[in-house]
């Protein structure tokens, strides 16, 4: 029965092709998620680090010494990266170590902060004030980014659930119930048209969901997966209900 069920998809080459591509692309979609989590954890720790550095510099410590100490005290990726980079800076200059740290974080926020600190050092600017202002700026920015993410993540997931799962199953239920193939209804062309529609609708839904959360490029990896899922759900549900 299971093989029978699976063989019913043999007529639809596009679904099978999309399913294989979808699985492969979904595997490619995992690294951007991990990278984003890592980057956001670094960025969320940045204001705290800058504030501590501002206090330490205000207390009369040198920036390098303050950074090394804060790096050791800051838990997580940011502290670890900072300590590693500064410890390796014995073989190079402090500027080079800062640049290396900025590029290792792969965060544009950290890179901008480091460029500003570097310029401030070169211009002999008041570091304590600059660090404190930067800490407040980035704290507000991160709060805003976190707010957007937390408020829109639920809605983004809802779109994917509604459009990629709910919609195909609902229509399949209606079609399977009122025009079952086992009663002689000729619905092969109809199913093919509708499954293609659900694939396109799922692609649109997934992209809108990604755009809402500001990560459409990352979501592109998941588009074939959701397209294949909605097509399989529709065709599978029609087959199960309508025979």
């Amino acid at each position: 029965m299971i093989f029978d069920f699976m063989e019913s998809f043999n007529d639809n080459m596009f679904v099978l092709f999309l399913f294989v591509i979808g699985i492969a692309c979904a595997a490619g979609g995992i690294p951007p998620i991990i990278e984003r989590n890592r980057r956001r954890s670094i960025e969320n720790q940045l204001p705290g680090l800058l504030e501590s550095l501002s206090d330490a510099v205000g207390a009369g410590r040198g920036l390098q010494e303050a950074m090394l100490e804060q790096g050791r005290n800051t838990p997580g990726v940011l502290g670890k990266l900072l300590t590693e980079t500064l410890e390796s800076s014995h073989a190079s200059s402090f500027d080079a170590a800062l640049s290396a740290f900025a590029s290792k974080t792969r965060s544009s926020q950290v890179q901008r902060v480091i460029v500003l600190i570097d310029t401030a050092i070169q211009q002999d600017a008041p570091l304590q004030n600059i660090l404190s202002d930067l800490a407040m700026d980035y704290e507000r920015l991160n709060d805003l980014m976190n707010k957007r993410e937390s408020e829109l993540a639920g809605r983004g997931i809802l779109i994917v659930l509604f459009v990629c799962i709910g919609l195909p199953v609902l229509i399949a239920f209606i079609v399977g119930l009122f025009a079952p193939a086992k009663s002689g209804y000729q619905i092969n062309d109809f199913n093919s048209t509708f499954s293609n529609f659900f694939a396109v609708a799922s692609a649109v839904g997934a992209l809108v969901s990604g755009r809402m959360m500001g990560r459409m490029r990352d979501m592109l990896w998941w588009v074939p997966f959701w397209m294949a899922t909605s097509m399989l759900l529709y065709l599978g549900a029609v087959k199960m209900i309508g025979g």
Partner: protein
Amino acid sequence: MRKLDEKKEILYVIRTLDVLMSSGVGLEAALHSIGKGGYGIISKDFSAIMSKLSSGKSRGLEFEIKAMMNKAESDGYRRLLNTMYTNLTQNTDLIETLRKQGKRMEEDRNESVNKYIEDLGGVPETLLSIGMIGPIILAIVGLVPQILGDGAEAIIGSIDQGMINSIVDGGLMLTVLGMILIGLKAHTKDPGL
């Protein structure tokens, strides 16, 4: 796209200019520093200005900034360029104005993010409504000839299956188009964080 990029970078550029100029760097050197990169489209613009200046073909920084004002698409960027132009021609207090602009722009950014979240509140339901009503109606239209059988001809006359298929295809395309248009709101109203 340019407008969104400008909106995304402008606040950082203002903060950087503020830090650089407060610590004694001149406007031209500050523009050169930003032009080196890290601020997207604005870095490219400033880099183009500095290249023109260093090539000797330019009439001066103020003319280049004025020319850039025509190219700028976002209000914030245009306002910043205008502030720099005024500083160059009338020697105004640029740092103070930058601080005020930065504060105002940050308030605008907060407002636009809140509005964005509010505006997108109904998108899932709207997408589902359009994505559901269209296919339900079209599924019935597509299946009517088979469900009603001979009775269909008695009610609505002779039915051309080809025409029914065309109506269903067209309707589904319109449904997708409607979904795209609703989804486009998520892109066009992006506050650019």
